């Protein structure tokens, strides 16, 4: 009897549940305790940026904003996209979704900018260093396959409830394509061109800025395009922790079971996505050398 209980004691480590949750909680607690002051500061700063730009956009009359966007879309992506922008944004104004649309737009744009700032250097690094590539790529796989909701939970202790937490989760979710496609774009530069640049005595930086990055721009733009789309897809999820914008309209509609309202907000997200998609795609194409 005694013997068997001892042996059961011995093996319980194998059968007991691993305390993975507890360990992760402890890690996050530790990080919160020591780094929250930093993230909170970033949070404050970003909140101000978001607030000011939202207020800035809202202080302008919608027709003026629509005109500016339409001209921008027309210049960057052609007449059709310009006309679509007028009609699409006009519809959103009419549906009284102007304010949440602008909030969402700013959330997406700021998240995309952060994702680019992080993504391009990491992309370049992983393209140039095989070691970095081997470390970064599995992390990206992890980041992308992990359900995006999960990021929301630890985001709150670091950044507090609201738009910045949402943005943190959005960036984590949306940065992988920026890194991947920057890496791909640089790796795709033909070996012969690299050799030519080397033969003339280019330094590593000259090669990067005069050859590799310029040639990678179409691919990088495709990555940015994907980043924007992923950021938009996070909008609804982020609304669960108070990000505001079109996502919270959808969220409200779900809770009140109002399919009509839900579709209105959903269509607004689609329109925004289409405008941003067409513009970024066109920029990518214009920069391709069409070999």
């Amino acid at each position, binding site marked *: 009897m005694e013997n068997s209980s001892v042996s059961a004691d011995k093996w319980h480590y194998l059968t007991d549940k691993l305390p993975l949750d507890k360990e992760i909680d402890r890690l996050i607690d530790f990080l919160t305790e020591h780094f929250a002051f930093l993230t909170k500061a970033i949070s404050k700063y970003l909140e101000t940026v978001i607030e000011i730009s939202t207020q800035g956009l809202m202080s302008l009359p919608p027709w003026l904003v629509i005109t500016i966007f339409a001209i921008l879309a027309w210049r960057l992506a052609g007449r059709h996209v310009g006309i679509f922008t007028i009609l699409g944004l006009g519809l959103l104004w009419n549906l009284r979704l102007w304010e949440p649309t602008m909030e969402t737009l700013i959330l997406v744009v700021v998240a995309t900018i952060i994702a680019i700032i992080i993504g391009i250097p990491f992309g370049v690094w992983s393209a140039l260093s095989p070691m970095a590539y081997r470390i970064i790529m599995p992390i990206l796989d992890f980041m992308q396959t992990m359900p995006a909701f999960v990021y929301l939970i630890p985001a709150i202790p670091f950044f507090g409830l609201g738009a910045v937490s949402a943005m943190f989760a959005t960036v984590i979710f949306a940065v992988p394509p920026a890194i991947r496609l920057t890496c791909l774009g640089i790796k795709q530069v033909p070996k*012969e061109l690299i*050799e030519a640049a080397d033969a003339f*005595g280019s330094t590593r930086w000259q090669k990067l800025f005069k050859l590799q990055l310029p040639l990678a721009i179409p691919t990088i733009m495709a990555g940015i395009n994907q980043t924007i789309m992923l950021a938009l897809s996070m909008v609804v999820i982020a609304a669960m922790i108070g990000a505001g914008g079109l996502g919270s309209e959808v969220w409200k509609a779900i809770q009140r079971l109002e399919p009509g309202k839900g579709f209105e907000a959903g269509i607004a997200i689609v329109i925004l996505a289409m405008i941003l998609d067409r513009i970024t795609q066109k920029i990518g194409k214009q920069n391709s050398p069409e070999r």
Partner: protein
Amino acid sequence: MEKIRAVNVTKIFTSHPQRALTLLEQGLSKDEIFSQTGQAVGLVKVSFDVGEGEILVVMGLSGSGKSTLIRCINRLIEPTQGQIFIDGNDITSLDHRALLELRRRKFGMVFQHFALFPQRNIINNVEYGLEIQQMDKLFRRDKARQALKLVGLEGWEAAMPNQLSGGMQQRVGLARALAVDPDILLMDEAFSALDPLIRGDMQNELMSLQARMKKTILFITHDLDEALKIGNRVVLMKDGQVVQIGTPEEILTTPANDYVKRFVENVDKSKILTARSILTEINLFAYLEDQPRDILHKMQTNKVASLFVVKRDNTLLGIVLAEVTRQAVERGDKTIANITESQVPTVITTTPLIQLIRVLAKWPWPIPVVDKENKLQGMIVNQRVLKALTKGGE
């Protein structure tokens, strides 16, 4: 002094070459080493030099190591063993900075598939070498324009590379290499991707440019005709080793082994062989003061139908024919002054075979080969020409 000097350059494609090197020392072949170690042997103790202003052509089939070799010269590929001297300085020990500096100052490189930067227009492509040296913008624009003019592409400055034909793209490639005013041009199969006609044009143009510029050129090709046409000397490579180094004529006339022999079989020899390699030495002459009777006797005993008439110092005066001499003897002439035919076509030692054939077609007698002072060096006879053309072939 030699401009480029390669001494025992060996390349093994691996980071741990020790075992392969040992096996190489033991005399194993490239294939044996690969099957034993899995390491590819690129070059085996390649040595050669290139004189200032010379065009040295490295010729070999694919896999012979010629592309590896040219990249070792500017260390785009690091040689595993051996040394490379540029202007007498060993460059294998240079650090990264010094290497960049060397590439900028000494080398211009032209690539098989042009390797133009697709996002830059023509003038910006040509400027590239100067741009990375942070040259003044106006200066480099000026240099680039000059280089474009040199290759005959004025007016194309603003075009993009993909708007140009292959031949034009390679002219841009050449201009890009020339714009930095390098001492040495490295040309890696520069014309191999071009149509035969365009290729011929480019070869001629390179040679006329070279006549003016006097660069030192290392030219890689897999085309023996091209090698023999433009090379001052040719390095023949096989399996990473040098098989033969020599002038085109030496390679054709004295192939080092069966491999070279098989190679040169199908070459159009008429353009490369010159009078020098097929001339027949003359040891029978007619001197102006000789009597016709003596000359006829000389001809009959040696069974020849004609003799060249020379002065004592070997200056060519003309030719006497047996038939005419016999008539002169019958007439009782005392000198050969009247029977000497002075309207003789002459050639020099460097006259190519193809021109000799043209002369032979109109002149039934041996052709005298003379030097600059009209001194007789030898003669060209029919049979030797025919034999030279068929040598090697069955």
